[in-house]
C-alpha cells in the first residue's frame, strides 16, 4: 500500500507528546468516554437477547469472511444489476486514483463527504487536494477536525478531544476561509455552534454535484449499501449530488438482507447507546428515471489495503468482524489516558491496536508498539458486539513482534524477523520481565484468562501473573501508558509507518 502510511497521520511520538501535556484533552476524553459507556450499558440491558445477538453477529461475519471471495463476486453482480459500477482497489494509492479520476470525469472541483473511516485510512482528502479537488467533511465533528487542521481521535466522535470553547474558536477563526463565515458574536453553546455548522455546510450541500461516502454494511444478496448516522449530513451527501462514490472495505459485507437485523440492533446501542440512530440510509444502485431518487450515477470502490493480509492470519482475522461501533474505545483505560491520536492511525483504541498493525504490517516502530498499547484487561472484548477477542489478538501480535514468524504482506507470505532491540520489545521486557521472554507461556495464560474472564477478571493465572500484577485493573497501571510511551518513544524523531 502507499508507502504503508496512513496519509495525514502524524509521527506517533509528537502526537503522544502533545497529548500527554494536554490536561484539557484528558478531561474531555474522560468525560466523554464515561458518559457513553454508562449509557451504552443501559441501552444494551434493554435487550434480553443481547448475548444471542452478539453471537449471531460474530457468526454472520465469520461466515462471510470464510467465503469472502464468493460474497464479493455476488455483491458485484448485485450492484451492477442495480445500475451501479464496481471498482476494485488493492491499496490506498489505487483507491485514491480511482476516486480522483471519477471526480475529474464529472468536471467538478468540489465534493461533499460523509464521515468515513475508509477514506481517512487511505488519505483521500489529501489525494484529492493534490489534484485540485476540495473535499468538504460534513459531519459536525469531522468539520471541527478539518477546520482545526487537526486529526480525528475517536471513531464515532472524532472531535471528542475538543471542548466547546475550542470549537467556538475554531469556527470563528476558520469558517470564513472555507465558505460561509461563522456568525458575529458566536458563543460556545452547543446549539449555537451546531447552527453555525448547519448554515456553513448547507451552502455546500445545496450546490454539491459529487458526494463521497463509506458504508457501514453492504448486502451481497441485494447490492444494498447502508449508512448509519445522526445528523443528516449523510443523507444530504447520499441524496442531493448527481454522482455518488462510496469507498468501502471488503470486510463490510454481509450475505443477506436479513443479516441487517442483527447489526441494526447491535450497532446503534453499542456506539451511541441509542435504540436506533436518528438516520439510516439504504440504497441499492440507482433508481430508474420515473422514480429517480438520489444520485443518477453510483460508483462502489471495494478496498483491500491490507485486509486480505489480515484475513490470512487465522488468529488476527477476527479483527475484520469489526463494525466500528467504538464501544471498545470507551471502556479502554489506555485509550482514556492516551487519547486517540497516540495510536498513530485512523483506528484508535483497542481495535486500532490490533487492526492497524495488521493492515500495515508490524515493521514500523509505531505498528510494532501498538500491540502493547493495552492492559489486557479484557473490557474491550466484553463490550464488543461481534465478540472480537482483542486481548487474544494483542498477545498474538506481540508474539509476532518479538518472535517473528510467517505473515502475509501485500498478498505474499513473508518471514518476519524477531524485532531484536526493538523499542516495543524493550518496553515489553521491562513490563513483563521473565514472562515475556516466553511469550508462549503468556499466551497460554492469556487464553485461559479469556475463557475464565468472568471469574478472574483482574489477574492472569499461572505465569501470566507476574505480568498482570503491574497491569491490574481498574487500578491505574503502575506506569501509565502515556508515560511509558513518552519515555520509550518520545525521544525518537519519527515513527513512520513504513512497511518492509
Amino acid at each position, binding site marked *: 500500500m502507499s508507502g504503508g502510511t496512513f496519509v495525514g497521520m502524524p509521527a506517533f511520538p509528537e502526537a503522544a507528546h502533545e497529548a500527554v501535556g494536554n490536561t484539557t484533552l484528558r478531561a474531555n476524553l474522560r468525560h466523554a468516554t464515561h458518559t457513553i459507556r454508562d449509557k451504552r450499558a443501559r441501552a444494551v440491558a434493554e435487550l434480553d437477547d443481547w448475548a444471542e445477538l452478539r453471537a449471531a453477529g460474530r457468526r454472520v461475519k465469520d461466515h462471510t469472511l470464510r467465503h469472502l471471495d464468493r*460474497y*464479493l463476486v455476488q455483491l458485484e453482480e448485485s450492484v451492477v444489476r442495480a445500475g451501479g459500477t464496481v471498482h476494485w482497489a488493492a491499496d490506498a494509492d489505487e483507491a485514491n486514483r480511482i476516486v480522483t479520476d471519477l471526480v475529474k470525469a464529472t468536471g467538478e472541483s468540489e465534493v461533499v463527504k460523509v464521515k468515513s473511516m475508509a477514506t481517512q485510512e487511505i488519505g483521500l482528502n489529501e489525494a484529492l487536494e493534490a489534484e485540485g479537488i476540495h473535499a468538504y467533511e460534513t459531519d459536525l465533528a469531522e468539520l471541527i477536525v478539518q477546520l482545526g487542521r487537526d486529526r480525528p481521535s475517536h471513531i464515532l466522535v472524532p472531535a471528542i478531544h475538543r*471542548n466547546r470553547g475550542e470549537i467556538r474558536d475554531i469556527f470563528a477563526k476558520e469558517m470564513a476561509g472555507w465558505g460561509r463565515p461563522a456568525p458575529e458574536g458566536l458563543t460556545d453553546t*452547543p446549539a449555537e455552534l451546531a447552527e453555525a455548522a*448547519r448554515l456553513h455546510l448547507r451552502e455546500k450541500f445545496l450546490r454539491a454535484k459529487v458526494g463521497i461516502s463509506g458504508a457501514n454494511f453492504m448486502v451481497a444478496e441485494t447490492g444494498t449499501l447502508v449508512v448509519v448516522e445522526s445528523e443528516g449530513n449523510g443523507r444530504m451527501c447520499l441524496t442531493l449530488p448527481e454522482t455518488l462514490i462510496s469507498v468501502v472495505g471488503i470486510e463490510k459485507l454481509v450475505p*443477506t438482507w436479513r443479516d441487517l437485523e442483527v447489526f441494526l440492533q447491535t450497532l446503534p446501542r453499542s456506539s451511541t447507546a441509542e435504540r436506533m440512530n*436518528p438516520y439510516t440510509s439504504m440504497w441499492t444502485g440507482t433508481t430508474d428515471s420515473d422514480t429517480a431518487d438520489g444520485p443518477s450515477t453510483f460508483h462502489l470502490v471495494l478496498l*483491500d489495503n491490507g485486509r486480505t493480509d489480515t*484475513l490470512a492470519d487465522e488468529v488476527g482475522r477476527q479483527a475484520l468482524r469489526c463494525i466500528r461501533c467504538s464501544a471498545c474505545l470507551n471502556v479502554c483505560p489506555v485509550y482514556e489516558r492516551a487519547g486517540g491520536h497516540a495510536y498513530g492511525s485512523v483506528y484508535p483504541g483497542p481495535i486500532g491496536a490490533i487492526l492497524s498493525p495488521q493492515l500495515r504490517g508490524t515493521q514500523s516502530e509505531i505498528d510494532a508498539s501498538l500491540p502493547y498499547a493495552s492492559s489486557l484487561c479484557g473490557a474491550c472484548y466484553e463490550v464488543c458486539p461481534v465478540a472480537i477477542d482483542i486481548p487474544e489478538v494483542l498477545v498474538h501480535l506481540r508474539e509476532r513482534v518479538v518472535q517473528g514468524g510467517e505473515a502475509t504482506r501485500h498478498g505474499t507470505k513473508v518471514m518476519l524477523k524477531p524485532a531484536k532491540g526493538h523499542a516495543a520489545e524493550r518496553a515489553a521486557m521491562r513490563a513483563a520481565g521473565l514472562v515475556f521472554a516466553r511469550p508462549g507461556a503468556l499466551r497460554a495464560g492469556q487464553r485461559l484468562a479469556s475463557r475464565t474472564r468472568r471469574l478472574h477478571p483482574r489477574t492472569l493465572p499461572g505465569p501470566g501473573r507476574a505480568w498482570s500484577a503491574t497491569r491490574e485493573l481498574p487500578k491505574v497501571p503502575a506506569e501509565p501508558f502515556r508515560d511509558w510511551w513518552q519515555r520509550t518513544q518520545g525521544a525518537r524523531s519519527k515513527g513512520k509507518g513504513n512497511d518492509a
Partner: protein
Amino acid sequence: MSSRDRILGRVRRALADVPDGDTSYKAYEASMDRGYAREHGDRTTEQTVDLLAENLADYRAIVHRCAAADLPELLTRLFASRGSRSVLVPPGLPPHWLAAADPVRIHDRAASTPHELDRVDSVITGCALAVAETGTIVLDGSPDQGRRRITLVPDHHICVVRVPDQVVSSVPVALERLDPARPLTWISGPSATSDIELDRVEGVHGPRTLEVVLMSEE
C-alpha cells in the same frame, strides 16, 4: 492482472485453511443459527402502538394521536402553530389530508433545485412502516412519501403513521416487510448531534422538528 483478480486471488489464498469442499454458503440461511428474538416482550397491538409513541417521544419527536376523520383538522392546527406558509407535498399524498390546510402546496419536481426545497417551511408524508421497539419511522419513497430529499431539506417534517397497520414491533419484522430495491430512510427522532461535549443538540442538517401523527384508521 486486474485488481479485481488480484484481490480475489489474495482472498482465496488467505483462506487456505478453509477446506475446499466447504459449501456452507449454499445453505446459509438454513444453517445460520440466529438464536435471538424476533421481537422483545409480549405485547398487545395497542401496547405496541403505545411503545412506539413512547420511544418516539423519548427521542424528541413530537407525537400526536388522532382518528382518521380528524386528521385534516389536526394538520391545519400543526401548520398554523408553526406559522408554516408553504408545505411540500409528495405526489401520492391522500388529498383529503390537507383538505383544511392553509399553506401553499409545493410539489417536488425533477427540476426543483435543492435551494427551492430549502425555502419550503414544512413537509408532510406518510410512511412505509414504523418500528415500536426503536421508535423509528421508515420511508421507502412510495408516492405518499416522495423522494428522499423532500423529508431532508425542510426544517419541519410531519409524518403520518397508519395505526395499527403500519406499526411493527421490531427491526427484524420491519426488514421482512421492506423492499431493499427501494431507497429507504429510517428516521428515529429529529436530526441530532452529540459531537460537542456529548450534549445532544437537535438538528444539524436534517429537519430539526419531527412530528409524528399516529392516525387510527377506524
